Every structure is written in structure tokens, then in C-alpha cells.
């Protein structure tokens, strides 16, 4: 049982990451690495009555031909549990959702987490001690995701990529994923922070 979780951020649809990962070749490579579950959070960008993220994702999923190629069958879709859709075949499962307030439960189940370089997503995965691959979304205004990703990977807490690192056959991204799964790449543990520092600072300010 090897599960991979992908989180693309909630506010803006990270289109290029969805294109790279919801891709028949990549799914094939995942299956070859014995990954049997892919959890995919694709974004919660809504404009008026349009769910931009879902429209993009669903449209691309059908274009990618994954459902037919891997004989995936939709076994569940529920509005109550946050629009989760569940596709399944004998060897592979794809579970998709726009956004989850309980993302920690998904992170918990994953062997490897692939996420956009938002600080919250990075910290969530690292706090739960997960192997983490971070992909920079360079389409954002006032972009500082690159800096964040570089800083975290410099400290060796995670591996960092730009979309261009995911292009071509035998790219760095897929080979690194394999090494991570086989423990050939070791990442540093993220220090746990219990809030003592901020509590002390507030205490100081209240009493001084």
C-alpha cells in the first residue's frame, strides 16, 4: 500500500501541476513504483457560479484518457464529504476533491506528499513528518513560492521543483519520487514547534 497525496493550493488553480500529474504516462510510472492510491486536491477557485478549479480538473481528467486507459470505475461521489470523487480499478485508485478542511487526515495516509510551495501546505506535511516534494507555482502574482521552496529545500526538509523539472522522459521529478519511496533520499526532520516562543514573547509584553 503506497499512497501519494497531491495538494495544489486552494485559492488559485495550479493548472500546470494538474496537467503534469494527471497524465497517463505519469500514472503508469506511479503504478510501476507500486503506488496504488493517488489522492488529488485540485483547488477551490470559484468565480460567480463557476467552480473554475473543478471545471478545469474534470475537463482535463476526461481529456487525459486516464479513466479508460486504467479501467477506472467511479465507485463513489459525494457532496456531503466535500465533493470527493473516487475512481477505482484492480490495481489503482484515484481520489479527487477540490479542497478539504481535514487535509491532515489525507496527509496522514500518504507515503509521499506533493504540494505547491505555499507555506501552509509545506508546514502541514512537514509537521506530520512526511516525505515532501514541493512544486513552485510560478503563475502567482507577487510570486514568492520559488524563494520559499528553495529555502525549505536548502535546509533539506523537502525536495523542490519547478514545472520545467517535470518535463521530458526520465525527468528528475519521477526519479526523485522513486528514490524517496525507496529511502534512497533522506530528508531532515522538521523541528516541532510548541508555541513556547510566542507565549513567552506575549508574556513579556504583557508584564513589561
Amino acid at each position, binding site marked *: 500500500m503506497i499512497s501519494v497525496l497531491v495538494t495544489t493550493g*486552494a*485559492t488559485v488553480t495550479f493548472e500546470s501541476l494538474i496537467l503534469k500529474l494527471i497524465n497517463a504516462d505519469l500514472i503508469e510510472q506511479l503504478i510501476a513504483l507500486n503506488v496504488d492510491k493517488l489522492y488529488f486536491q485540485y483547488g477551490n477557485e470559484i468565480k460567480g457560479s463557476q467552480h473554475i478549479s473543478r471545471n478545469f480538473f474534470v475537463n482535463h481528467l476526461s481529456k487525459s484518457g486516464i479513466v479508460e486507459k486504467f479501467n477506472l470505475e467511479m465507485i463513489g461521489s459525494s457532496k456531503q464529504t466535500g465533493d470527493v470523487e473516487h475512481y477505482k480499478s484492480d490495481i489503482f485508485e484515484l481520489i479527487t476533491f477540490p479542497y478539504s478542511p481535514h487535509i491532515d487526515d489525507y496527509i496522514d495516509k500518504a507515503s509521499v506528499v506533493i504540494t505547491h510551495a*505555499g*507555506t*501552509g501546505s509545506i*508546514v502541514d506535511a512537514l509537521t506530520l513528518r512526511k516525505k515532501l516534494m514541493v512544486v513552485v507555482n510560478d503563475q502567482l*502574482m*507577487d510570486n*514568492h*513560492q520559488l*524563494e*520559499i521552496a*528553495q*529555502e525549505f529545500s536548502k535546509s533539506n526538509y523537502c525536495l523542490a521543483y519547478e514545472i520545467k523539472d517535470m518535463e521530458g522522459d526520465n525527468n528528475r521529478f519521477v526519479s526523485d519520487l522513486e528514490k524517496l519511496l525507496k529511502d534512497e533520499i533522506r530528508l531532515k526532520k522538521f*523541528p516541532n*514547534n*510548541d*508555541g*513556547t*516562543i*510566542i*507565549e*513567552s*514573547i*506575549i*508574556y*513579556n*509584553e*504583557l*508584564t*513589561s
Partner: protein
Amino acid sequence: MDFESLICVTIGLILFPILLLLLRLIWILPGLRSSPLATKELKLTDLPNDIVGSNIMILLGSGGHTGEMMRIVSKLNLSKLSRTWVYSSGDSTSILKARRYEEENNNNFPTKYLCIPRARKVGEPILSSIISTLNSFIVSGLSLLTLRQKPSVLLLNGPGTSVPIAYILFALKFLGLCNTKIIYIESLARVNKLSLSGLLLLPICDRFIVQWQPLFYKYKRAECYGILI
């Protein structure tokens, strides 16, 4: 009195209040006061009795800012303080998170929620952002002025609304109407460069905390304890 001394007295009368105002400013400017850097491990549950029940004001921005702030606050035990959550108009996600925090933590002291108009939207053109910031200033000023319990501590992490809120409380402090200590925690997303809010607030914050080393070396008043969220 001859003409000459009349002028002297007039100038004196004008300059004296200005001098007083300057002295007051120097008195309260945090940059001129040394903060206790060596932080011992102090717990808010051990607060002295006369301080228990003081108010902490926590500002929620939107999206990422709220996410970071809630991650920080969720690690704190605020049960001995009353809390005022400030959120921007139209930001229903943030208020939900604050309410959930309040439900999950058993707090004895009352909670207040304060809604203020949004200052600068990300990427808003300069002129229209000046107008919306002004509007935000006036409305926030009135709401803060009418607060019965003024906050003892203001916790900020850099959304646009931080700026008017912090400056209004600083002005109230200048007038002697409150004694709010301003604690700023720069967003983890800022590695090499302060945010605009951070730059504007640097002079008036009592504590200015950054989360990455490059920023710590760049700004003299910044404190750094690593990643806090």
C-alpha cells in the same frame, strides 16, 4: 510687552506643545526601548493575577495570512486572556476558523469579533488602494475607539489591514488612551524582503519577528527564532 517679546512668546507657545508631542513620541516609540531578547520559557497560564483577563487582539487577514496566524494561535494557550478577533469584511473563511478555535478551546474570558473593511487588495492599483485604505482607517478607528476593553497585546502577521489597525492603536497609545503592545510576525512566505505591511509597521511594533535568517540580518530590530507556524 513690546513687539519683539510678543513674537518670542508666540513662538514659544507654539513650539512648546510640539516639543511635548515629540517627547511623547520618543517616549512610546518602541525602537528606543530595549526589549527582553533572552526569552525564558514563560507560559501564559502562569500569568500574574492582575494581568489575567487582559485582552489580546488577533488580526486575521485572508487566505495564507489567516492560515499562518491560526497555525500560530492554535499552539498558544490563551485561556487566561480575553480575545478579540479582527477580520476583514467578506472574509467568511477566517471568521469560521476563529470560531472553531474558540469552540475547541475552553476559555473563561469573553470573545469578541470585530469586522473591518478591507484595506488593500493584492494587486490593487495605487489610487484606488489609497481610497480603500482611508476608508478602512476611518471605520477601524471608530470601532477601536469605542472598544470598552482596549487590547493589551495586538498580534499581527502582515495582511493589508494590519497597517491601519496598528497605526490607530499606536495613535491611541500616543494619546494615552491605551497601552497596546504590538507584536508583528512576518509571514513565512517572506524570505529576503519584508512585505509592504512589514516595512510600514517596523517603526511602531514593540516586537518584530521574522522567520528566516536573511531578514533577521537585514533589519536591526528584527528577532528570529526560526519557523513559528
